[in-house]
C-alpha cells in the first residue's frame, strides 16, 4: 500500500490488521482512492479500469462519490443529519439496544440486570428472530484441552480467517450465557429445554478430549427462537427494560469527536424520536440479506438464491459505516440451508441428488450446507432433490444420519392429508410416486431428464464404481423399486454471518483500529466470528449460541461503564 497507517502503540493482531487493510470504511476508501490504481487493485474492490481508479472524482464509479464529498459505496451515501427541530421527542437512557432479536434481547436484559436503564428500539411490531438451537460449552464437563481443540477446529472451519479471541470468548463464556438465556426465557413463559451434549454427537470428544455442551432448544417447530425472544422480552420488561416497537433506527447521534451519543428512530406515525444513551448504543440489527446492493457487493455468490428472512436491510451496517466503522472484506460468510423440506436427519445422507432440471450434479457426500455452491445460478436457484426408492430403509441403513420410515416421511409430504407435527407445514416438500415420471412432476423436474439420470445412475451403481463423480462404492444404491421418493429441497440464505470490525468488548473499531466511543455491535452485525465460504455446522446452534453469549457479555459490559 502506498499509504502508511501509523498505529500509535500496539500492532494489531493479524485478523484486525487484515480487516483494516482490506475491509471497507469511508475513511479507508478515501485513502485508497488517493493511493491510486495500485491501491485499488490490491484491495480487490472490483473491476474498475485503471483510468477510472486514478480519477476517483469521476461520476459513476462502482462505489461512487457521496454528496458530502467523502468517497463511499455508491449505495451507502451518508444521509443529511436529521435536525433537532425534526425530532418529536427525546428520551434518555443508559443503554440503547437497536434490534430485538437473538442478540439484542439478551443484551438488553443483561444490561438491566447490571443496573442500567435500558431501551430497545425494534423495527418489527414485536421481538423477532429465527431458528431453534443455540449452543455453548459446558466448562464443568469439558477438558480444557478439549475447549482449546474445539477453538482450533472452529478457527479451521473459518479457514483461519476469524478472530481467535472472539472464538475463545464464546468457548469460555457460552455455557454460562446459554444457561442464563434458558432460565430467563423460561421465566417469561418460553418453551425451551437444555438438550445438553447428546445432540452434539460429533464433538463429544475433540482430538480425543472429552467435551460437554449446553444446547438450548426453543421448539419444536413451528415454535422458534422468535417466540423465545418474545418471552425473554417479557422478562426484560419486568426487569425495567422499555421496548419501542415499529421503531426502526435511522441515524446515530454522533459528536464531533466521533463519540456516539444516541440513536434517532422513526415511529409508525412518521415522527422521529431521539434516544440518548449515556453509556452506549448496542447495535443488534441482524444481517443484510434483504439489501440487494449490499449483498451483491459483499457476497455476490448468493445473487440468485432465495432468502429466508424479511426486512434485514443491513440498517445497522449502514449506521456503523456512517459512524466510521469497517466492513469485513468482500467474500462474506453465508449460511444456506434447507432442514425443512424433509427430515433434517436425512439431509446429509448421500442419496442420488439431482438439480432443478433432474440432472446429477455432485458427489452426494457433499453436505447440504455446502450445496449452494453448486446451485447458485439463476436456473437452479438453490433447488435440488434427493431421490431414493422403497428399499432405502435397508439399503442405506449403514450410512451416517438417521433414516425416517415411509410412515414418518408422510409428516413431510404436502400431498399427504396427515396432520403435520414438529415441522413448518408450509415448507415441507417430500413426495412419493409410483413412477419416476410422476415423481419428476411432483418435484418439479423434467421427467425425461430424471428418467435418463436414474438410468445412468443405476448403471454406475451396477458397475460398483462411480465413474461420473467418484462417490465411494458403499454410498451407491440403486433407484429401482417403486414407489420412488423425492425430497425437493431449496437452499436459501438463512443468514449472512460476516460483519463490522469489533474488538473483544464488541466495540466497533474505526479505520485506524481505534474503538468508536459509545458504539457496539453484536449478533450477525459483529464481525470476526467466521471467515470461511460457508457457515460451519461443527457445533449445532453456534450462530444463536454466539448471539446469546455476546449479547449477555456486551449488555453487562456497557452497563458497567
Amino acid at each position, binding site marked *: 500500500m502506498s499509504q502508511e497507517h501509523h498505529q500509535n502503540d500496539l500492532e494489531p493482531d493479524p485478523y484486525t490488521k487484515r480487516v483494516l487493510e482490506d475491509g471497507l470504511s469511508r475513511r479507508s476508501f478515501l485513502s485508497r482512492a488517493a493511493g491510486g490504481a495500485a491501491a485499488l487493485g490490491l484491495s480487490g474492490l472490483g473491476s474498475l479500469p485503471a483510468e477510472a481508479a486514478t480519477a476517483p472524482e469521476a461520476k459513476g464509479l462502482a462505489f461512487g462519490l457521496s454528496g458530502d464529498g467523502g468517497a463511499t459505496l455508491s449505495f451507502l451515501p451518508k444521509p443529511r443529519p436529521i435536525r433537532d427541530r425534526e425530532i418529536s421527542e427525546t428520551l434518555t437512557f443508559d443503554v440503547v439496544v437497536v434490534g430485538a432479536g437473538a442478540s439484542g434481547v439478551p443484551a438488553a436484559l443483561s444490561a438491566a440486570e447490571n443496573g442500567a436503564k435500558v431501551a430497545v428500539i425494534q423495527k418489527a411490531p414485536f421481538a423477532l428472530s429465527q431458528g431453534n438451537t443455540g449452543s455453548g460449552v459446558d466448562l464443568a464437563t469439558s477438558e480444557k484441552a478439549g475447549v482449546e481443540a474445539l477453538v482450533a477446529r472452529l478457527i479451521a472451519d473459518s479457514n483461519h480467517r476469524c478472530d481467535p479471541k472472539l472464538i475463545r470468548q464464546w468457548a469460555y463464556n457460552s455455557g454460562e450465557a446459554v444457561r442464563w438465556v434458558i432460565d430467563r426465557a423460561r421465566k417469561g413463559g418460553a418453551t425451551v429445554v437444555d438438550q445438553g451434549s447428546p445432540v452434539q454427537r460429533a464433538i463429544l470428544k475433540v482430538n480425543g478430549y472429552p467435551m460437554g455442551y449446553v444446547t438450548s432448544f426453543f421448539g419444536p417447530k413451528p415454535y422458534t427462537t422468535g417466540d423465545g425472544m418474545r418471552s425473554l422480552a417479557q422478562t426484560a420488561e419486568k426487569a425495567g427494560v422499555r421496548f419501542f416497537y415499529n421503531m426502526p433506527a*435511522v441515524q446515530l447521534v454522533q459528536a464531533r469527536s466521533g463519540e456516539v451519543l444516541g440513536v434517532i428512530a422513526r415511529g409508525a406515525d412518521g415522527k422521529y424520536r431521539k434516544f440518548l444513551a449515556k453509556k452506549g448504543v448496542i447495535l443488534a440489527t441482524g444481517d443484510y440479506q434483504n439489501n440487494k446492493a449490499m449483498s451483491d457487493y459483499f457476497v455476490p455468490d448468493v445473487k440468485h438464491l432465495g432468502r429466508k428472512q424479511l426486512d434485514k436491510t443491513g440498517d445497522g451496517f449502514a449506521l456503523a459505516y456512517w459512524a466510521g466503522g469497517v466492513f469485513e472484506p468482500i467474500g462474506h460468510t453465508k449460511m444456506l440451508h434447507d432442514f425443512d423440506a424433509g427430515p433434517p436427519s436425512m439431509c446429509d445422507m448421500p442419496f442420488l441428488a439431482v438439480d432443478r432440471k433432474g440432472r446429477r450434479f455432485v458427489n452426494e457426500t457433499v453436505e447440504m450446507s455446502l450445496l449452494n455452491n453448486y446451485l447458485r445460478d439463476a436456473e437452479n436457484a438453490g433447488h435440488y432433490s434427493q431421490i431414493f426408492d422403497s428399499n432405502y430403509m435397508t439399503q442405506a441403513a449403514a450410512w451416517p444420519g438417521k433414516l425416517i420410515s415411509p410412515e414418518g416421511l408422510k409428516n413431510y409430504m404436502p400431498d399427504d392429508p396427515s396432520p403435520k407435527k414438529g415441522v413448518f407445514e*408450509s*415448507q415441507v416438500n417430500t413426495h412419493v410416486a409410483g413412477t419416476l415420471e410422476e415423481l419428476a412432476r411432483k418435484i418439479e423436474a423434467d421427467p425425461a431428464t430424471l428418467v435418463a439420470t436414474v438410468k445412468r445412475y443405476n448403471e454406475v451403481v451396477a458397475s460398483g464404481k462411480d465413474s461420473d463423480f467418484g462417490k465411494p462404492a458403499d454410498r451407491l444404491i440403486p433407484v429401482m423399486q417403486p414407489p420412488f421418493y423425492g425430497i425437493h429441497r431449496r437452499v436459501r440464505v438463512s443468514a449472512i454471518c460476516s460483519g463490522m470490525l469489533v474488538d473483544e468488548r464488541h466495540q466497533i473499531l474505526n479505520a485506524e483500529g481505534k474503538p468508536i466511543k459509545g458504539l457496539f455491535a453484536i449478533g450477525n452485525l459483529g464481525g470476526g466470528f467466521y471467515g470461511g465460504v460457508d457457515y460451519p455446522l461443527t457445533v449445532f446452534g453456534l450462530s444463536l449460541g454466539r448471539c446469546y453469549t455476546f449479547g449477555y457479555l456486551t449488555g453487562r459490559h456497557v452497563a458497567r461503564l
Partner: protein
Amino acid sequence: MNNLTVSRSLGVGLAGLLAAASLAAAPAKAARTSKHAGQGITCVQCHGKSARKEAVPMRQCVGCHGDTVALAARTAQIKPTNPHQNRHYGTQADCNLCHHEHAVSENLCLPCHTRFTFQVP
C-alpha cells in the same frame, strides 16, 4: 402532510434510495389497477397535497380501512393462510408490500411459501 417514505427501514438512507429507484415509471393518473378511482377517492386522500407523489405511509390506508386486527379478522378464513395475520408481522404487515394502487398487486409470501397462492386485490 409530511413527505416521509413508508419504507420500513432507513427512509433517508439506502432503502429510501432503493425504493425510489423502483418507482421510476410514474403513473400519470389512476390505472386499471386502481381499487379506489371508482370509489370516488381522489389522489389527495392518499398522497396529501404534496406536489411530489411518492409512497403512501401505511397509516394512511389504515386511516380509512380501520384497525389491522379487525381487517385480519375479516380474512381469517382465507386458505391456505390469513394474509393479514402472520408470524413475520402479526397483523401489521405494510399494506404496500402486497396491494398496489398503480401497478398489479403482488403476493409477498409466494416466493418463500410456494403454496400460499392467494390472489391479492
